[in-house]
């Protein structure tokens, strides 16, 4: 059959039916078993009803994108069957509970599993029907039940043994039902035979990254899909002593985060589209005050409220130029959880080292998507306290100047109250002391220090883009941020027949220097260069042209609020190749 095992499961239903739970448990299960898992979510902006789905791919080789076609569809409602039956793989199977979807389907590709009935009979409550569904999926795949039992134990610890046992009984019954009834099931599941994998999404990775960077203050205002980072940090706030504060609005968020930073700790805020727009004045304040702050922006389709629970890469240029006036910043856009962890740490480091705002851009797709790793490298994480906290004696302290020119681009940032140093920050143009000035000469010097002296130093810190391919590729597929995984899977599959390479930017601004790796040469010498973006206007391509003069030969842009899927992206890349 296949070279390697690679199955996709889609769980569909209404908001509130618990499909996230089913998906989440299955994903965790497969990753514990040692499979590679990739999942993504598609949900509407409502709390109950509508149509949502959770899509999960698991394999014995690395996977980093979703496919359109599914091998198993778990349909919690009729709509799921109607909408997704076309997306069933050959020999794929749709499982459903005829009684609860109020219709039955016959044929090779359907398997009616009475989830509700199994739940009531074994667990005593319809509420466990999702457990029956999970069991049934395992049964269809002929996988072992032991790990599921473990997971049920952990997840339901707080609910007590009775509930745990009922769920286990229900799961087993669902499992057995599928073993017995799914005669047409022909899935060939190879055993990974390895240790379990981690399962993590990029919101968690960014949250984890901030905790591991010594972030002590997070404030924000709820906004999908940015809230997940706040939720994650909130869940660890007590343990790691982090103040997590929900503000009255996003203007307060950025200004409060800056106040916290001034107070002497690492601080962070985050939002999405419109909420971030409200922060732009504060971004400029960070620029002027030279105050470190890390800002996460989880993009969603705009303009305005747009499609609040969907995905897009539409805010890159807005972030790059956000805030009035001119000041340096760094902008990172992780393409997977691993990069999310690493770049969040790097953002905190650079923000404090250079006293600038640092941005982490994600989007709904990458924020929610789960990946597996054997482990995550923490050796590349750094923690340096760049603040001036030592004591010097009264006289020296009273000579302290917040914006002293004497140390070059970066003037030491003291902590108020920590010594006799007075820390004076001003949003007006100011002198070395931090007091407002109006003269042209001081203004020019401050701009030079703040902007021109820092920029080259910051640029030196930016690492080469990710490159995968030969030395002289014919075709280069380029992307940034969330498209990392999908481009990788697409290029890997195309590389069997084409001299094709992948170029991916996660450290976006400043653009990496050519010294590290001459991506401009690679691009210029290729025949076909495609910039893949989940936006309408090709914002990264615009940035590349503005910064380097380089213009891609092709662009692939989606702007329908949905992520790229493997089959269609591969198809579109092929079209570009054929068109030439």
């Amino acid at each position, binding site marked *: 059959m296949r070279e390697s095992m690679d199955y996709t499961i889609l769980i569909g239903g209404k908001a509130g039916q618990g499909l996230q739970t089913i998906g989440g448990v299955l994903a965790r299960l497969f990753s514990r078993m040692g499979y590679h898992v990739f999942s993504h979510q598609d949900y509407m902006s409502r709390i109950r009803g509508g149509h949502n789905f959770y899509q999960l791919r698991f394999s014995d080789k690395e996977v980093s994108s979703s496919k359109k076609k599914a091998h198993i569809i778990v349909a919690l409602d009729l709509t799921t069957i109607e909408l997704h039956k076309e997306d069933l793989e050959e020999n794929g199977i749709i499982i459903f509970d005829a009684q609860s979807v109020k219709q039955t389907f016959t044929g090779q590709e359907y398997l009616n599993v009475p989830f509700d009935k199994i739940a009531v009979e074994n667990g005593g409550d319809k509420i466990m029907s999702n457990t029956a569904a999970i069991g049934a999926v395992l049964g269809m795949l002929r996988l072992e039940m032991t790990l599921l039992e473990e997971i049920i134990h952990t997840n339901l610890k707080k609910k007590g043994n009775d509930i745990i046992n009922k769920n286990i009984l229900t799961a087993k019954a669902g499992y057995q039902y599928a073993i017995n009834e799914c005669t047409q099931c022909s899935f060939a599941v190879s055993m990974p035979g390895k240790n379990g994998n981690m399962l993590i999404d990029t919101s968690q990775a960014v949250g984890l990254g901030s905790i591991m960077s010594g972030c002590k203050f997070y404030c924000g205002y709820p906004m999908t899909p940015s809230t997940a980072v706040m939720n994650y940090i909130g869940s660890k706030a007590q343990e790691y002593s982090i103040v997590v504060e929900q503000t009255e609005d996003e203007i*307060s968020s950025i200004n409060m985060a800056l106040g916290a930073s001034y107070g002497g700790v690492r601080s962070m805020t985050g939002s999405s589209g419109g909420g971030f727009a409200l922060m732009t004045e504060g971004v400029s304040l960070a620029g002027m005050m030279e105050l470190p702050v890390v800002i996460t922006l989880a993009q969603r389709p705009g303009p305005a409220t747009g499609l609040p629970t969907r995905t897009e890469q539409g805010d890159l240029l807005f972030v790059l130029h956000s805030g009035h006036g001119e000041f340096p910043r760094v902008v990172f856009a992780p393409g997977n959880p691993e990069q999310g962890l690493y770049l969040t740490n790097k953002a905190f480091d650079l923000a404090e080292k250079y006293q600038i705002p640092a941005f982490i851009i994600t989007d709904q797709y990458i924020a929610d998507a789960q990946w597996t790793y054997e482990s995550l490298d923490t050796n590349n994480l750094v923690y340096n306290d760049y603040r001036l906290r030592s004591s010097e004696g009264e006289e020296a302290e009273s000579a302290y100047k917040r914006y002293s020119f004497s140390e070059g681009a970066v003037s030491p940032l003291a902590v108020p109250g920590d010594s006799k140093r007075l820390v004076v920050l*001003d949003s007006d143009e100011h002198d070395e002391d931090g007091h407002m000035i109006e003269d042209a000469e001081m203004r020019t010097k401050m701009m030079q220090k703040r902007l021109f002296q820092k920029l080259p130093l910051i640029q030196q810190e930016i690492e080469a883009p990710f490159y995968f391919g030969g030395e002289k590729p014919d075709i280069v597929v380029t992307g940034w941020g969330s498209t990392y995984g999908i481009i990788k899977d697409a290029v890997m599959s195309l590389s069997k027949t084409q001299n094709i390479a992948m170029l991916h930017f996660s450290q976006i601004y400043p653009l990496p220097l050519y010294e590290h790796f001459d991506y401009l040469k690679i691009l210029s010498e290729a025949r076909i260069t495609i910039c893949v973006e989940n936006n309408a206007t090709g914002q990264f391509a615009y940035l590349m042209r503005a910064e380097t003069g380089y213009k891609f030969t092709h662009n692939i842009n989606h702007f329908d609020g949905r992520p790229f899927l493997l089959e269609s992206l591969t198809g579109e890349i092929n079209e570009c190749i054929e068109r030439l």
Partner: protein
Amino acid sequence: MNALSDYKGQEPAWCPGCGNFPILETLKTALFELGMESHQFTIVSGIGQAAKLPHYLKCNTFNGLHGRALPPATGMRLVNHEMPVIVTSGDGDCYGEGGNHLIHAIRRNINVTLLVHDNQIYGLTKGQASPTTTEGVVTKTQPFGANASELNPISLAIGLDCSFVARGYAADSVFLKSIIKEAITHKGFALVDILQPCVTFNKLNTYSWYKERVYHLDETYNPYDRAEAFKLAIKPPDKIPTGIIYKNNKLTFEERISILKESPLVKQGFSLKTTLKELDTFY
């Protein structure tokens, strides 16, 4: 701390005769009498004439954005609740642009002292109506007159059950000093609305106008009765009471956050190592 003169900062750029001068001097004296040295407290401000104050009084300073003094003040307190934080703001800064932060700073009851230099006008931007400008006043940007009712910061704050609500008058230094000292030592959010003549742009609420109206609340007044305080606050403004109009003894925001019990956040250390175990939770 040795002398009052240690607080001397930059030369003020205010107009001669401006009501901000006595406020500045009064604040210095209050701090001096409270024994707070320049490095031991922080003044946070927005933008406006009042907001320039921290440049004129040597101290830790966060002179931020117009309307946005309270959020950084809150952030500062949350990471270092041993640091007294004073906010100097204007009526436009605090009640106009910054209105939302005021509501929520009061709700939080963050332990910050807010001094609003209320000149009933936008001074720095040259004389537009502010939220406290008397109804009907015509300016260049109010060609039909200030058509909204003037904001009553006292009744607003009492409506929000603000922990400490006072009114002072810039030219009444001794009394103002006592109010400011109480406000600074009060545990909880303290709003002091300070009537401040703007000699350049406010030709209505002048020194003599205030002098005719302002009076002191005496010892018999009980500031703990919220309903009575409200009654006082909404009385017609032919006589303007100054003093502490309302207070209560709620817990502060900082006190309600468990992880701040032991020490201020800024003094709690960090080591990357202690966090490594979090990776395990993802298996």
